[in-house]
Each structure stands twice: as C-alpha cells, then as structure tokens.
C-alpha cells in the first residue's frame, strides 16, 4: 500500500511551535487520574460526540493499565490521539466535569487521553483486526477524519474500503488545518498510518470525484459510498483589492504554513478577518510566528463571535488585538496590500455612514468561512443538498440507495470529534444495510 503522503519538507513553518498544552508526566497523570470521581452515567461521556467511556479510561491510567486505557479510547474514537490534542474539551468533556460545580478544577481529560494514546502510539500497540471478508466494497470520498473513522469501522466489519482523496495528503484538516501548537502534520500522518495499518483500505490520492471518476461510476462499482469531502475553498470578501499580494484565504495560508513555509519577513502588522475559530487560529499562528501586531477584525461584538471563549482568551494572552463591529470594504496598496479600509456597523449590521477607517496591514487573512461542496452531489437524484450541506438522517444516510455522508460536508464545519462520530455512525449504518441486504438506509431510518 502506498504511503498516503509524500515526505514532508524538513523546514516547515509549523515546526516553530511547541505544544500549547503540555503532556502530563507519568506521575502527574496518575495523580490526576486518581482525582476522577468515576461518575455514574458520567456527564463527560454524554458531552463527547464519540461517547468515549472517559471514567473507565481514566481509572485504567490510575491502575497502570495504559494499554487498556488506550483501547477504551480508541474503541470509541479511532482518532482519539488527535482528538486528545485538538478537541475543545473546555466546552465538551471537561466543561461537563462535575468538578466544575465543586470548588476544584475539572479533570484534565484531554491531557489524560493524550497520555494514554501517546503511550499506545509510542509502544506501537494495535488493538483491532479486520472482520472476516464480507465481499462488499465501500468507496469513501475524501480522506479526512470522517472517512478514516468510517473506513476503520467498515474494515472491522469485514468490508473492503477505497478512499478517494483529491489532495496528495490524507488526514484532511488534521494534516492541513489544525493549529500547530495543538497538532503538527507529522503526528497526523503517523495517525493516518496507524489507522490504515488495519489493512484492506485502498488509498487513491490525487483523484477528483466528478472529474477523474464519476459519481455514477462509484455507484456502479461499489456496494456503498460514503461522502466525507469536508469543505471547499476559503470564502472571499468580495471587496476591491482582494487580489493584492498579501491577502490570503485563511485555510489556504494555514495549509501552506503547515505543509511548507510561509514568508513573513518584514510583516509588521497583520489583520485577520472573521470571528470564528479559524480566525482565532490565524491570529495565534501569526503571533507565534513573530508578527508583532495582529488584529482580529470582526463584524459583531465579542459576545457574538463563534470562536470559543477559551481560544480567544488564549489569543489575548498572546497579544492579540481586536476591532469589533466593523467589516472591510477594500484592500488598498500598490501590488501588495498596505491598508485595509473598514466601516463600522450598527446593531443591525448596517454600515454606519462616515464611519470609515483604515487599518495598516502588510498581511490579511480572510477567515469568513469556506465554500460548501454539496453541489457536486446535486447531479444524483435523491441526494438532498440544503444550503450546500448534504442532508442526512440520524444514521448518516443521504437519501439515495447506497449513499451516506458525514463530517464537515454534512455539519457545515464542526470539530474533528464530530467528523469521527459521524463517520463511525455512517459505517455502522452501512454495515447494517449490507448485512441486511437492503439497499438504502438503515433498518430504522
């Protein structure tokens, strides 16, 4: 089986970053694990999209059963190593910890999960075997977290899998988009290799579905198809000057920073447009790479931003600036951007006449969303696309015969852990469909 990635360049910009959240030392992990109350029907499990049995894996750390701990995690979430680093635990499991209601800090669940899963990776433990060959073949469009989770579950059920990935890189945003102070691309690739090690997952990179292979071909050649294509290109501002040098779509710039190098010499002031988590990532990455002044420009106020509060507070601590209630109306400069012209908005988000102002900016990242790829499926009768998202039932069934979907292309752009949960869920529905001999949907869909 070919490696899913060409060798990574030695000098990647992301290697400038260390871990924002440090790993636990072994004695620290045991002490923290011993604090866990082992709640009944634990709220942390309910808060985890993949429903990891968190008290159980923590108890196993406390008893020195690290192998069992990692197995508990990975049984529910095959990308548990990544999720330990990138999950917004503050609003998921850790946010649900009952210690938040007591005068004690909540359990450091993410760091404990990292402790166990890193141990598994470092020791090379493998836990899962493919099921007996079922004779069924499943195609997975896109090689990100949703498809990886789905493919792994399908292999455990004995179905042959083929992943079709447009890029040269597997792992999706885990490889190209995660802030490097949480996860660097080499670690993502290790995890991809670890997932693929179950065997029986054919990987075809550089294949664009709709161009190199048609949807009809897939429907003909496979017994089921899972769509996990994620999101498309960065949305554009639609203002004059947007094509000047120095104005970048945020996810494109982040991908370049992670897989290669970005040129920041001479950049003194940067502006990141947007108020979501990608915008905050961009701010923190620019600050971390040494840009002296980085300002987030957001149309709403702080209470309206979709980025997590804990992420923004970390950005503030690292020196971020902000302009609230304003939008760009032009990028200005001679060949290269020099300023960004903005206008303030009133409470109804209408431009306030005469409120124009300028921000100096040698670099602009546009983080106002990404295009949705549902349109590529519109050609297939029965597949429903709503606002660019693929509409699915609670099992990930997309409405036509053998078609299922999950991840950002369904949910519009959420966390890695949501993509894993949706991929896993769809794989179980696909398995039920194939074993039931029914074409289309799971039994109770």
């Amino acid at each position, binding site marked *: 089986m070919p490696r899913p990635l060409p060798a990574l360049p030695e000098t990647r910009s992301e290697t400038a970053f260390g871990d924002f959240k440090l790993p636990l030392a072994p004695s620290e992990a*045991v*002490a923290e694990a*011993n604090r866990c*109350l082992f*709640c*009944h*029907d634990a*709220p942390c499990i309910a808060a985890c999209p993949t429903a990891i049995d968190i008290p159980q894996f923590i108890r196993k750390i406390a008893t020195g059963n690290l192998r069992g701990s990692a197995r508990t995690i990975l049984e529910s979430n095959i990308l548990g190593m990544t999720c330990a680093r990138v999950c917004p635990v503050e609003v998921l499991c850790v946010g649900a910890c*009952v210690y938040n209601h*007591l005068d004690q800090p909540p359990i450091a669940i993410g760091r404990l999960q990292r402790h166990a899963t890193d141990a598994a990776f470092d020791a090379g433990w493998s836990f899962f075997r493919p099921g007996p060959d079922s004779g069924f073949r499943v195609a997975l469009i896109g090689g990100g977290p949703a498809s990886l989770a789905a493919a792994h579950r399908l292999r455990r059920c004995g179905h042959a899998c083929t992943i079709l990935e447009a890029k040269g890189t597997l792992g999706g945003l885990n490889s190209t988009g995660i802030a490097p102070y949480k996860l660097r691309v080499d670690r993502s690739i290790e995890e991809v290799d670890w997932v693929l090690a179950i065997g029986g997952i054919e990987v075809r990179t550089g294949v664009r579905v709709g161009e190199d292979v048609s949807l009809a071909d897939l429907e003909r050649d496979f017994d089921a198809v899972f769509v996990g294509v994620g999101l498309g290109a960065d949305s554009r501002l639609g203002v004059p000057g947007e094509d000047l040098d120095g104005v970048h779509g945020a996810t494109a710039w982040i991908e370049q920073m992670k897989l290669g190098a970005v040129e920041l010499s001479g950049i003194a002031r940067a502006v990141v447009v947007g108020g979501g988590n990608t915008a905050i990532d961009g701010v923190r990455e620019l600050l971390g790479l040494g840009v002296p002044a980085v300002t987030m420009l957001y149309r709403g106020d702080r209470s309206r931003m979709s980025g997590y509060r804990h992420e923004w507070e970390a950005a503030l601590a690292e020196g971020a600036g902000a302009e609230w209630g304003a939008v760009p109306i032009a990028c200005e400069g001679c060949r290269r951007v020099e300023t960004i012209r903005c206008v303030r908005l009133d409470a109804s988000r209408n431009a306030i006449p005469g409120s124009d102002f300028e921000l100096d900016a040698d670099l602009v990242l546009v983080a106002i969303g990404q295009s949705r790829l549902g349109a590529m499926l519109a050609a297939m009768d029965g597949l429903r696309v709503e606002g660019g998202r693929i509409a699915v039932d609670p099992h990930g069934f997309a409405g036509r015969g053998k078609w299922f979907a999950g991840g950002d292309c369904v949910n519009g752009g959420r966390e890695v852990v949501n993509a894993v949960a949706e991929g896993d869920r769809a794989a179980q529905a696909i398995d039920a469909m194939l074993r039931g001999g029914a074409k289309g949907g799971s039994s109770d869909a």
Partner: protein
Amino acid sequence: MPDLSTDTGGIRSPNPFWLASAPPTNSGLQVQRAFEAGWGGAVWKTLGTPIRNVSSRFGGHTIGGVRGAGFNNIELITDRPLEANYREIAETTRLFPDRAMIVSLMFETREEWREHIARSIDAGADGLELNFGCPHGMCERGMGSAVGQEPAVNERITSWAVEFSTVPVIVKLTPNVSDIVPHGLAAKRGGARGVSLINTIKSLIGVDIDRFVPEPRVGGASTNGGYCGAAVKPIALHMVAALAREQSFGLPISGIGGVTNWRDAVEFMLLGASSVQVCTEVMLRGYGIVEDMIDGLEAYLATHGFASVSEMIGKAVPNFREWGELDLNHETIAKIDPAKCIGCQRCVAACHDGAHQCIHPQEGTRVPRVDEDECVGCNLCQIVCPVTECISMERVEHAVPPASWNEHVADPSTHPLRPKKGSHG
C-alpha cells in the same frame, strides 16, 4: 489554655503524644530531636539481646494513589549495642527531664529481665513497656507476640517485671488474638499499671507481581511482617474501646495504631486512651507533625469546654455497645440537598450496585431522587458523595418506641419493631 498533661499509669508527660517504640526512637539523637519538636514522651526502641536485621525491611500499601496509607515492617528490636542504648537514654533523660521516657524491653529469662530493668531505671526510665506484641522474627524465638498470645505467660513475665521494677510497668499487647480482653486482664493480674495497644498486625503487605515475590523483598523472598499506619486505626480503636469498657479491667491505656494527627488522637482518647503513641506517620513525615497535634488538641479541648485532657478521656466509651443493644426502631433516610449536589451520581451507582436500589436518576436533572419508602438509611450514599454535607441522614419520626434486639427477643409484645424497609416488596 487547656492543660494537655497526662498520666498513664503513673507515667506523666506534658502532652499525650508519645513516640512508639520503633525506628523513630532508635537513638538518643533522634529522641532528643523529637523532644525538641515537642513530643511529650518516647518509648525507646525495644531493648533485648541485639539481633541482625534484613534488607529491605519496610513495605508500603498504596491506596488510590496515597502511598503509605498502610505500612508494614519486618524489622526486629534494637540492633545497636545495649551499652550505647543505656548511655543515650541517660543523656536524653538528663537533657529533657520533663518528658516521659519509657524503655521497651523484650528478654527471655527472669535474670535477663531483672538485669535490664535495673539498668533501664538506672538510665532514668520513667516507665517500662513490655513488648509482648512483635508478630515477626521474635515470636518464633518465643518472645514478642508468642508471649502476648498466651495469657498465662503474659501474666508470669509481667509479674517478674513488676517485681523487679521501681517505676510503672505497662504491657504492650498484640492485636493478633481473637479477643483482646483476656490479654489485658492477664497483664493486670501480673501487676501492670497500664497497657498499650495495638502492636502491629500480622500481615503480608503485597506481592511484586512481575517477580512473583512478596514484599518487602529480601532477595528472592519475603516474610510476614507487622501492619500499621493510617489503615489500621479502626482495628486499634476497637481493641482500645473493648478494654476501656470492660468493667473488670480499669487500667490506663496508651493508644497505638494509625494515629496520624490530633483528630485520630482525640478519637483514641474519647475511647479511653490516656496517651497515644505514634510511629508510622513520623516515619513518613518526620517529628514535625507534633506541632499540629498539640495545636489541634488545644483547640479541640477549648471548643468543647474541656479544661484538661483528662476531662475528655473515655467520653465515648459508654456509647460503644453490643449490636444487640442498639435501637432497631431508630430510622434514618438519605436526603440529597439539590443546591449542593454536583450531579456525579456516585450515590446512584453505589446504591444500585452496593446497597438497596433506592436512589434513582431523574429526568431533566442530574440530581438523583431517593425512594424514601425503600431507603434503609445505610449511609453508603453519604460515604461516596464527594460534596461535604450534600447528603444527610435524617431521622424519621414515628410512633414505635425504641427497642433493641435483646429487648425484642426477650419480650416481643412490649418491644415491637417498626415495619421492615428495603425488601422491595
């Protein structure tokens, strides 16, 4: 300021905190440092015919990440020359005349006892403690717990010591017996002025699961030792209380076994101990723990209006009863304070899996519900609840008058029992 001074069978000390006969009292420099730290007395590491020790000697019991929650040792009595011991005892008693110096002894023959009792008293001992408790190494040679487990031998050797001694003799009892009372009475018949208990509990602290060797590991093998430390306190409290309430006993008691702080000490004294002895907690943390013990005890006495330690000794003894004397009609049920509940539902798991299936989750809230018709008031939920005063055991008022099992069996008609609960139909 309350008076902390105590008198245990004629052995007086400025406070009730003594170091037990053990490694912390192995030498003059150690005991002098302990006295500087504030300890009221010390029982010198047992003198006897010097022995040889093994390496290693101690084992720790880790419980829920707490290291040393229990502890054991396979060390024997002093391995230092007796001359050195007597010289250092004399030096220490000269430097700290106000502290209680008790010399622990373990010998075989009557003549040996005579000689070493005399030498101990010459060195300045305020009292003698007879080591009839050591459960390893010495008992196989006919000493230690081999003496303490045979009331007749205990009585005979105690009577020798009393005959030879001009200072009070107390007997240190072994817990490795089915009932402590006959052994305390044997010491009394022998003429002892008091007893101290418990010595360590015969134990095997653990197993090295990779080498397949019990611990503490001496090369490729180990042996049984003496269990002590915080974990043994409940066993010690029971034995102290059993002697304290025995009408025919009546001797002062020096309480030993899992005393780690002033709270533990108060519990021992409320159950009848005049002084307490500490070893393991000092081995784990050093002599400095006595400062908090003194402060804490003073504050406790002041809070309860006791002018002296002696006023509190034995206060809980009358409330230590036989099971058959307890009121079967006393009814409590668990109440959960929803304002304090953090929703961990450990009480649900505990009640369902380990008790009487009467605490249930509810729709729309993490706060569980108590089925009061089924709750037997067992306390398990309150024990597992991590929140202070969230679950309380509340008295249920009813018309049935108190009745103990003994009373009910004697006359059911005049001592009826309330309806039974917790049988689920």
